[in-house]
């Protein structure tokens, strides 16, 4: 599904090249559940953003579902991630002005799905995540765990093949975190969604079937 080859990423700072990613080679098969670990500043988020097509690498090739991502036009790339990738963030990033229902509905609107169909899909999602009762509340009225649940529901509502999660449990207590991890496992097993998560917790990383360690922008060989 994902083939990263010889990925380098650098930024110019004060005339110097600062490397954020160095020689990343990574293959991910469909249906995998991968955890990325590493110290702060090691490039985990940067790597995730490259894979999510939100950011470009400076060098190397990226194949996503047999498409050469870096040679696509901005619009085509947006089309690709919009269709196949869901994002979950540490800070949830729900839209404050929208209700739970509307937050989950948003990606479907951007995929031009008709209103009646959207209603059915969102209703289904609320059901699965057990948050039907909260559908008319605003994000600020929810606990962190509940907000992240909404965030995950929103990431999955458009049926992506790949879920990218950047420290999804970073703002949660361990009990809430565990719940999220169990949810991920379930999604991965039952729906076959490929998951790549960044985490600082060994325990949560263990839910993944493969762990990748980053250090200074490089994949650490074990």
């Amino acid at each position, binding site marked *: 599904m994902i083939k990263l080859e010889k990925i380098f990423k650098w930024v110019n700072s004060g005339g110097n090249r600062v490397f954020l990613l160095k020689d990343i080679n990574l293959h991910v098969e469909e249906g995998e559940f991968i955890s990325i670990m590493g110290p702060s500043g090691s490039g985990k*988020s940067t790597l995730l*953003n490259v894979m*999510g097509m*939100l*950011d470009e690498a400076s060098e190397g090739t990226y194949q996503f579902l047999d498409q050469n991502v870096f040679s696509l036009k901005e619009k085509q790339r*947006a089309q690709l*991630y*919009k269709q196949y990738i869901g*994002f979950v*963030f*540490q*800070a949830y*990033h*729900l*839209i*404050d*002005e929208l209700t739970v229902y509307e937050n989950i509905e*948003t*990606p479907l609107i*951007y*995929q031009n799905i008709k209103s009646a169909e959207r209603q059915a899909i969102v209703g289904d999602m609320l059901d699965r995540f057990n948050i039907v009762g909260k559908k008319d*509340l*605003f*994000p*600020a*009225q929810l606990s962190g765990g509940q907000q992240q649940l909404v965030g995950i529901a*929103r990431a999955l509502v*458009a049926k992506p093949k790949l879920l990218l999660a950047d420290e999804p449990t970073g703002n949660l207590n361990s009990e809430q975190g565990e719940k999220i991890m169990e949810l991920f496992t379930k999604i991965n097993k039952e729906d076959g969604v490929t998951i790549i998560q960044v985490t600082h917790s060994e325990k949560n990383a263990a839910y993944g079937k493969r762990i990748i360690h980053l250090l200074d922008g490089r994949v650490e060989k074990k």
Partner: protein
Amino acid sequence: MQIDGTLRAAAMCIAAESLAITKVALFILLIACINFMNLSTARSEQRAKEIGIRKVAGASKGLLIGQFITEAFLTSCIAAAFALLIVQLVLPAFNTLINTHLSIVYNSIYFWMYALAFIVFTGLLAGSYPAFYLSSFRPVSIFKKQFKRTNATISPRKILVVLQFTFAVILIISTIVIRSQVVYTQDRDKGYSNNNLVQVNFAGDINKNYALIKQDLINLGIASSVTKTMTDIVRGGYHSWGLRWPNEIPKDTVTTITIYSADADLIKTTGMHLVEGRDIDINKYSGDSFSVLLNESAVKTMGLKNPVGQIIKNPFDNINWLIIGIVKDYIQGSPYNNIPPTVIYGPGAWFNMMYIKFNPASSTANSLAKAEQVFKKYNPSYPFDYKFVDQQYAQQFDSGQRTKKMAGLFAALAIFISCLGLFGLSASVAESRIKEIGVRKILGASVVSITKLLSFDFIKLVIVSIVIATPAAWYAMNRWLQDYAYRINIGWGIFVIAGLLTIVIALITVSFQAIKAAIANPVNNLRTE
């Protein structure tokens, strides 16, 4: 008396004009004050924390209000200084534009008093709303994130934006109406031909030597035709309500009729159009001393069926005037007025001026130089004094032109200031929604949809303004048009043009910020925590 009356009328006209200008200027000041209110309250949402902390630290509401009003006063003072500078710089250009000689009276105490009053007034106007709005923030709700839809359907800020744009749209519509009215009147069929037509008032021996002058002008090929008249054909003749005509409604003594006399070749010289009958020609028909021409309005006023050949009477001189021809209505007096019913007598009592149609084959300068020689010859003790009829006619549009230019200037200023406010407001909204925009992009929103999202709220307000401004402007401009007998009908096209123009300008203004926010890389904007 006459001169005094004219001067007084002119002075009143100028007074009315400057009153209107003052009103519009106040509106524009209000628009600018609204910008200050909106932008400072918008910015305050970023300052909310600071205010909360000050309040918690014990600052009283009064102290905070004082702080904000002082800020507004300072802004107002600085603005006044800039305003003086700008006025000083653009005044010469403004004076040429509207043809006046305005200047700043630095040595007048009243000027400074007014200036001070305005600074205080502006500071209070602009500063009071933000002051009360900001100082009423409750610290708790500032620190705790509110879970309320911020884009309520009606908020003071929206009302203020609507108010601003309502003024701007009214001014735009007014400008278009004024412009159309002036152009419409300029395009009005004059009914005669005034180019190459020169008026020479009788002075010295011109009256005595008229026949010789006319002969020379024509024989030397300077003029193609010459006539003399009793009064100015552009301004109109004297008025009488004493004429009697056949089958007249009894005691119709209210209708005034313009009367003047001509000797011969009037129609040929002035290019009036003969509808029926013939021109007066005393040289060919000796009876023409008692012949008259009527214009179409006169025929209509008198209700004559077959006018040519009928007799009209003037009881004062007891003369029977024979109608020999009808001329098409031509513009006399203000081109904005109705054309008065007019009777042109054959050569009667006296003449005051002559009209010369220059030979179109030679240049005007050449004709003038040659004509001057002719007049020097027959009227040596006077300088050759003449007026071009087309220039006299054009002068009648001076005040209309001035109004048109001023209205355009004001409308441009109003829309510019309103858009300046909209620009700032849209920037602050884009800034405050930067995270949301990032999230939406990651969820698949296109640049277009985000631009729409950010722009549409503002455009909705502008549309509301157009809806409010349309009937208001329609009413005001209809009243303005009542002063003109010859006037346009305000068609809906004017409102459509004004509305579209405003929407396009506003759209360009807000979409600039919206597009900027929409094309930004979402990753950068979400990276804070």
